[in-house]
């Protein structure tokens, strides 16, 4: 865990309280981010391994949208091409939006709650727990599905929540919900679970490719059922997080000050961590471990719109969705008709950005 040592450092708060840089009006920035998401989604729908005529794609979508009203749009796609669009490409794009939005907004929330710019949604053991759950089921589960749901997503979901639960439990035993203690507890839990995952993986080399594919993140086998599966959790979690923007701004001044301003830091931290972890666990369940989105997107948003969490959270949602759709687009197209794991693409974009962030931060000091 190369980032572990960096995380323990009491990071400089880029999350300076709200009113620091209201350079552009909220409306303008939100509209721009919304447009970016729409453009990304359109690009994601239009471009893929199978070329589809853009006009007929629009007509097909219009036909689907208007179908319930008895309107029949002519010139739509038929047969295999329609199946490719409606059953393969569309759910994938939608899932990319959901996963990207969930990871980005969770990352922003974690950064706020820990007052640490290096925090990401996997900080408290969610990734390691999900990885262990997925690895165990890939290697040892006798069944592939439990009812209509795949066993690996279920195990990943449970593992992610288990990891966070362990970190919270250890943190509270070790000294309450005080942020540095919790952070250290998270690192300890993550390291332990990751080691356990590695052990299981090494004992089951015949499953390595599958495990590896899961660990690096993938959207290739997205289905509508995945979307239906995660949407409720993501909806609730994101709604809770979006309501916490103001409180996170207050928390940014410090626990004591926040307390005197009527925000209970311990309770807020717990609520935000639980909501963000739920969103992360849902995302991880359907897509594996996609790195860097949760870390990078909130920082992009801060550069554009300032540090107030009333802006960072909703904008991260939009930009995160757009970012992941575009990353997935690159993953699908660059070697088409072969695919690149999406985790490679996000890290390829994310890692240099991360380096730049550190460099720029050091220069400013």
């Amino acid at each position, binding site marked *: 865990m190369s980032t572990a040592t960096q995380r323990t450092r009491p990071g400089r708060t880029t999350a300076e309280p709200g009113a620091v840089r209201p350079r552009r009006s909220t409306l303008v920035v939100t509209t721009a981010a919304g447009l970016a998401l729409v453009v990304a989604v359109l690009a994601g729908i239009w471009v893929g391994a*199978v070329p589809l005529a853009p006009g007929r794609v629009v007509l097909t979508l219009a036909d689907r949208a208007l179908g319930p009203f008895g309107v029949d749009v002519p010139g739509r796609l038929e047969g295999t091409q329609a199946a*490719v669009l409606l059953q393969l490409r569309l759910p994938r794009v939608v899932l990319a939006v959901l996963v990207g939005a969930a990871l980005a907004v969770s990352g922003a929330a974690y950064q706020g709650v820990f007052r640490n710019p290096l925090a990401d949604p996997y900080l408290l053991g969610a990734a390691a727990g999900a990885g262990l759950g997925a690895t165990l089921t890939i290697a040892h589960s006798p069944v592939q599905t439990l009812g209509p749901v795949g066993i690996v997503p279920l195990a990943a979901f449970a593992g992610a929540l288990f990891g966070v639960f362990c970190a919270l439990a250890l943190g509270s035993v070790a000294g309450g919900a005080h942020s540095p203690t919790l952070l250290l507890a998270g690192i300890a839990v993550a390291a332990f679970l990751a080691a356990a*995952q590695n052990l299981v993986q*090494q004992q089951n*080399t015949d499953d390595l490719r599958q495990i590896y*594919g899961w660990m*690096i993140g993938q959207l290739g086998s997205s289905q509508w059922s995945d979307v239906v599966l995660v949407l409720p959790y993501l909806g609730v979690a994101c709604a809770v997080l979006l309501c916490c923007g103001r409180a996170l701004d207050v928390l940014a001044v410090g626990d004591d000050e926040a307390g005197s301003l009527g925000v209970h830091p311990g309770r807020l931290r717990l609520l935000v961590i639980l909501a963000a972890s739920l969103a992360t666990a849902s995302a991880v369940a359907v897509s594996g471990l996609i*790195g860097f989105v949760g870390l990078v997107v909130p920082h992009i948003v801060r550069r554009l719109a300032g540090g107030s969490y009333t802006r960072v959270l909703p904008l991260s949602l939009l930009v995160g969705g757009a970012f992941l759709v575009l990353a997935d687009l690159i993953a699908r197209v660059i070697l088409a008709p072969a*695919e690149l794991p999406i985790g*490679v693409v996000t890290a390829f974009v994310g890692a240099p950005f991360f380096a730049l962030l550190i460099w720029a931060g050091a220069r400013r000091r």
Partner: protein
Amino acid sequence: MSGSLPRAARSTSRAPRRSAVALPALLTALLLTLTACGDSTEDDGDGAASSSEAADFPVTLTADNGEVTIEEQPAAIISMSPTATETLFAIGAGDQVEAVDDNSNYPAEAPITDLSAFTPNAEAIVAYEPDLVVLSDDQNGIVDALGSLDVPVLLLESAEDLDDAYAQMELLGEATGHADEAADVVADVRDRIEAAVDSVPADAAGQKVFHELGPELYSADSSTFIGSIYSLLGLENIADGAPDASGGYPQLSAEYVVEQAPDLIVLADTKCCDQSAATVAQRPAFDAVPAVVDGRVVEADDDVASRWGPRIADFAETVAEVLQG
């Protein structure tokens, strides 16, 4: 004894995320040669026959690790390659095999151990006091490590085509004193594959095949060993549409597979991932694929399809049979 040895060579650099971003295609290709799972009960090896002639030794052979001299007929062979294990038993050298790695699950009488070919440990191997070690991959510098301990090592990397595979079978025959049986096995495999190719009806030529290595739609193009079998059978491999950069084992887009409308789907992920004709039919948009509609989804044995031993003839016959029907 060996079971309690620590797997000291275990890689510690495999952090589960972020560091795992490099060269997925390369790793995939590597894993594919190591991937083999499940178990088999069928058995056509005969360990009884023996044409061993001590006069054939010492013998000097050229393997993928260069020239190797074997002084005497080996009596304690360790096979760290599932393919080599199958071959050794098929050519009647089974009695000389002391231990095989944890993926060598065929034939049933192979002395399977928990030796790992993926994280090989020279100490654990040497503990068996082998007089010959056969490997398919030089993981963690194992060839040099064994060489420095004066253990003869044959590195037989994954074959690129049938001729390669035949050459490896013959080489193992010479290395173990079973050259004649090896020649017989090669002739038999050769005949059966030729018969399978001849049995394919003319109108099946040019049909499209999709070879599936995992439900994530990893495939194998014509440059791979298994791909060369499809070429022999006159099939068009849809994985060839992927750029060379994807390394022979591309992960194909689901939409591409559907659009290519393969006439034949061969599942080499029935054991690892519980895939079947039924699970394929349930995938989104696959219900229109001709192979699914016409019931031409072959549920192959993962192990047979990922190795390059004598059982490749079984595989060719299975595929040819479906093409006839």
